[in-house]
């Protein structure tokens, strides 16, 4: 009978085992997904657990709005408290000082569109919470913060001692920390001579080696459907990051307010649904691929259509894709050949 055939075809699901270790955990307030290929299960578990422990520590160090243990703020939280109290220099761990130096540099390159100093704006919009809902827009508060112009250049960082010349600076490394953590994990695995792994922190992904004989393959989320819009191969050392208006947002009077705030207007960016950037491995003395995959998608997301190319080029990024508020898809010339569309009939424009 015809339905027997169907049942048969459904039962014939593959069953062979491959040396792939896979773990999923909630760290960083997001889902962390680690795949390690070609290591013994026990060793892979050991490596993954160490990575997760590192992430947990980073999370405790960088959490922007919640006491991390008891009433104790994170190191970044303490620094923010000191900045808004207008106190004299606070000494921080060297790794945090280096992160802030790098973030300040990236902020300059992005013409201030990537701005980790606008934590107060983000909390005004209600996005510095685990759970958020529609809020009444506090226009006066937004105006005041815009006028105060908190910027990374307000920070003075000398020998791990930090103070700010502007007390309205509130540091939020939300658009940086996940990428930084990817680089930490990739470096750790390389040091441990684990050659093949794929690490995904809340949608930012970095690849090491391959998945067996094939490269690691990554899907890019469709911004309006519960499926991938395209897939691509992620070669050794490459990272990919997507910023979307669908992960953290609320609807108010039929309008979507997402967590990506345009520092120029103080309002959530409105003309984009998602931006994906694909980043090649970087020289060891430069900003690493993981950080770039997290940071660079934001300025492209916020920029107007005419300036997206320039925003990407400022970071030397050649592979990116933009889906605008109307759902139109724009792909950079270099990226076109790398994408495999899930729906073969999809329409897109190639950016020159």
């Amino acid at each position, binding site marked *: 009978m015809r339905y027997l055939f169907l049942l048969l075809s459904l039962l014939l699901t593959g069953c062979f085992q491959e040396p792939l270790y896979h773990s999923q955990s909630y760290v960083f307030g997001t889902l962390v997904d680690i*795949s390690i290929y070609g290591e013994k299960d026990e060793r892979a578990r050991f490596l993954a657990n160490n990575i997760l422990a590192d992430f947990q520590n980073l999370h405790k160090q960088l959490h922007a709005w919640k006491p991390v243990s008891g009433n104790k703020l994170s190191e970044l939280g303490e620094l923010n408290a000191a900045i808004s109290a207008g106190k004299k220099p606070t000494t921080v761990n060297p790794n945090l000082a280096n992160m802030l130096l790098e973030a300040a540099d990236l902020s300059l390159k992005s013409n201030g569109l990537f701005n980790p100093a606008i934590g107060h704006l983000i909390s005004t919009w209600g996005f510095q919470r685990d759970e958020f809902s529609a809020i009444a827009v506090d226009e006066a508060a937004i105006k005041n913060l815009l006028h105060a112009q908190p910027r990374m250049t307000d920070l003075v960082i000398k020998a791990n001692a930090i103070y700010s010349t502007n007390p309205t600076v509130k540091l939020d490394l939300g658009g940086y920390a996940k990428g930084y953590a990817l680089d930490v994990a990739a470096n750790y695995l390389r040091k441990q001579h684990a050659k093949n792994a794929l690490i995904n922190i809340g949608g930012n992904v970095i690849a090491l080696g391959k998945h067996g004989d094939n490269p690691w393959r990554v899907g890019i989320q469709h911004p309006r459907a519960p499926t991938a819009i395209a897939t691509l191969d992620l070669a050794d050392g490459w990272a990919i990051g997507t910023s979307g208006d669908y992960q953290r947002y609320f609807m108010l009077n039929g309008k979507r307010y997402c967590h990506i705030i345009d520092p120029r207007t103080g309002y959530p960016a409105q003309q984009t649904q998602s931006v994906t950037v694909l980043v090649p491995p970087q020289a060891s003395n430069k900003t690493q691929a993981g950080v770039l995959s997290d940071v660079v998608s934001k300025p492209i997301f916020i920029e107007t259509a005419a300036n997206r190319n320039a925003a990407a080029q400022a970071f030397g990024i050649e592979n990116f894709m933009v889906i605008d508020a109307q759902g139109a898809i724009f792909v950079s010339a270099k990226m076109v050949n790398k994408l495999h569309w899930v729906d073969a009939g999809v329409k897109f424009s190639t950016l020159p």
Partner: protein
Amino acid sequence: MLVLNFLRYPKQLINELLIGDWLIIILSLVGIFYLFQSLWTSEHAARVQISVGNKIYATYSLNQQREIHLHGKLGDAVISISQGRARFSQSPCNTQYCVHQGWLSHAGQVAICLPNQISLELLGERKLYDSLSY
């Protein structure tokens, strides 16, 4: 007899066809080609894997009608399986993104409820990708 005649004269066979017949044959071929393209490229999933917190909670066949009640970080969620698909049908989270994702039916599709720390992933014979950038 008749069929054998046919095999003997393939030319005669072709001559039977009128222009409209050709049109219908060609349109049918195009249509079938599209059917193969659209229905065979993305694989229908066979199972759903549910994770709660850091643990894989269970894997269920999609070939059943079933409601699964789970206790997440925030509270009780309900996942429905029906007709080869799975979805979040109730969740205690504020945002309800997970519920709004609706039915998932293709291998590799995921729905994640971050606040409640429950996620669904549809499994098939072969995944379209190893991980998802979202």
